[in-house]
């Protein structure tokens, strides 16, 4: 019984993290129809930017109010989104709207390769450590076990992010416009919607979410080159399980993968590295386009 509780808590913590790193990927795919491999690099850039900004914050006397380091993490994600997002979208991706999905995967793969080295040029190859935000929230005692408070903050953040994305798409005027663009970009343009701006906005939002995932992770790990390589594949698995472009799907996918991995860590540790892909393969066998994928008409 206790083991089940441990698996549940571990699974939820991991699921929260997974949701934050993958929801941007599904958002960008939903609007732009681009499966962005560079999402992993943007996550890594977010982690580096977060680590750097928190470092700067404490160097400038942040010790007086250490909680400000959380703001520094979020600010880092905003900065990455505002700087990198428009460059990538305006400079490159807009040339590939409406093209083959697989071609777009390759384009973003090229971006991924380039960003990996850009990060080495900017931040060097030595690891960055910022542990302060991680220890700041103290420990949480759950029955006989202690958890780091920050882990629960990640779950909280995932819920806030999920609600914010869902509400802004489903309950705001801007969200309705975005849905219209997803449904039919040409008709939206005819109705006076500035479609390129919607695309750019969605992409910048996706970059922000990727960078936020990275920035939130930075205090938990040592930030080193190659950080994005693993994350992107895990995020792919999550959004494919849920159905590409579906926010609810990403949440369900994150929960399934999170719980499956936690269960595997405690029950079958040998399977830890690939349980995610097993879950994904199983879901695709049962629902070939993911759990929440919309049915599409076939073109003859």
């Amino acid at each position, binding site marked *: 019984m206790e083991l089940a509780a441990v698996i549940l808590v571990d699974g939820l913590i991991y699921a929260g993290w997974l949701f934050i790193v993958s929801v941007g990927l599904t958002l960008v795919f939903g609007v732009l129809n681009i499966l962005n491999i560079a999402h992993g690099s943007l996550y890594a850039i977010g982690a580096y930017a977060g680590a750097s900004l928190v470092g700067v914050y404490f160097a400038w006397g942040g010790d007086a109010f250490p909680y400000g380091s959380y703001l520094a993490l979020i600010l880092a994600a905003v900065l990455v989104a505002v700087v990198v997002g428009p460059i990538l979208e305006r400079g490159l991706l807009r040339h590939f709207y409406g093209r*083959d999905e697989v071609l777009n995967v390759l*384009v973003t793969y090229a971006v991924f*390769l380039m960003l990996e080295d850009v990060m080495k040029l900017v931040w060097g190859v030595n690891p960055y450590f910022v542990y302060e935000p991680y220890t700041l929230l103290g420990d949480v005692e759950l029955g006989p076990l202690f958890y780091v408070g920050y882990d629960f903050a990640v779950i909280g953040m995932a819920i806030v992010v999920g609600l914010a994305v869902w509400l802004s798409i489903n309950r705001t005027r801007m969200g309705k416009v975005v849905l219209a663009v997803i449904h039919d970009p040409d008709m939206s343009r005819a109705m006076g919607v500035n479609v390129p701006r919607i695309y750019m906005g969605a992409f910048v939002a996706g970059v922000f979410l990727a960078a936020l995932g990275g920035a939130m992770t930075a205090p938990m790990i040592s930030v080193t080159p190659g950080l994005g390589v693993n994350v992107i594949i895990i995020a792919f698995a999550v959004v494919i399980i849920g159905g590409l472009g579906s926010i609810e799907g990403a949440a369900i996918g994150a929960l399934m993968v999170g719980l499956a991995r936690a269960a595997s860590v405690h029950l079958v540790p040998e399977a830890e590295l690939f349980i995610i892909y097993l879950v994904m393969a199983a879901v695709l066998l049962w629902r070939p386009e993911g759990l929440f994928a919309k049915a599409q008409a076939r073109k*003859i």
Partner: protein
Amino acid sequence: MTPALLIGGAVAATALLLAGAVLLPDWAMFLTTMALAKGLVSLGIVGMMRGGLVSFGQGLYYCIGAYVAAMISNGLGVSDIVLVTVLAVAVTGAVGAMFGPLLATYRGIFFAMLSLALSMVLYGTLAKIPAIGGTDGLNVASPTFLGWAPEGRALQTGLYLYVAAVVVIVGTVMRLHFDSERGLITLAVRENELRVEYLGASTRNAMAWNYVFAAMLGGFGGATAALALGHVDPEFAFWTTSGEFVFVAILAGWLSVPAVFVSSIILELVRSFSNLYFPNTWQIFLGGFLLAVIFLLPDGLGSLARNTLRRLRRGTKA
């Protein structure tokens, strides 16, 4: 493609590769051996790409081939290169035949991601099994050639010639396959799958066969790479390895078989030289190169040859 052109191409390729055995310095011969072995893996991807499918998990077969080679040469003491590679191809062909019919019903990114998932499952499994080296991998003994056990330059040359011979044979067979009925159905699937089905052809069957061929080529490439390197590790199945095979396939395009091997050699050259001179920026070149190909040569290097041929024909008519 006319028979004369096909035979001419095969003879020219043979002559070129034979010349390489004499002229290439040691480092270049090793590099070319690896490039040709990996080119075979990419050729399998090109075969699927003709039908619109891009596998982001060909490292699965590359890795299985490599581990089969390692295990039979270490465990069974079989070092004959023909036997080792034939066994590796048999195993990967069987695994491919198991997954092929299933994966043949998926399209686009779902195919790409599912194949990627399979390769990552293998990566995760191998990394966690200490009996076969875990993340460190295994060493592989040098191969022998029908009883002949060379060393040094002779071993390099033997490996090179073996791979070169397979490249010429497989390249010719693949060209014939591309121009066969099944190969042309594959091409039609890319244009419009449903129409092909309505015309009475089985797209699933064509795709499954392409998948099995690609698996066998992947197994051969992996086994040869393992023998040439003398070492295998789970990275063979990691998705970035598969990404490089896709890179070569895209660079080559779907039109030409020789273009695949040319592209593979280009990638290996770019990699070795930039690793040497710009160790921290070579992926920028690689990414930029890929983007340039996608922008400027959407049908790959193979289209250069096609366009030149067309221009020549137009020239003779005028």
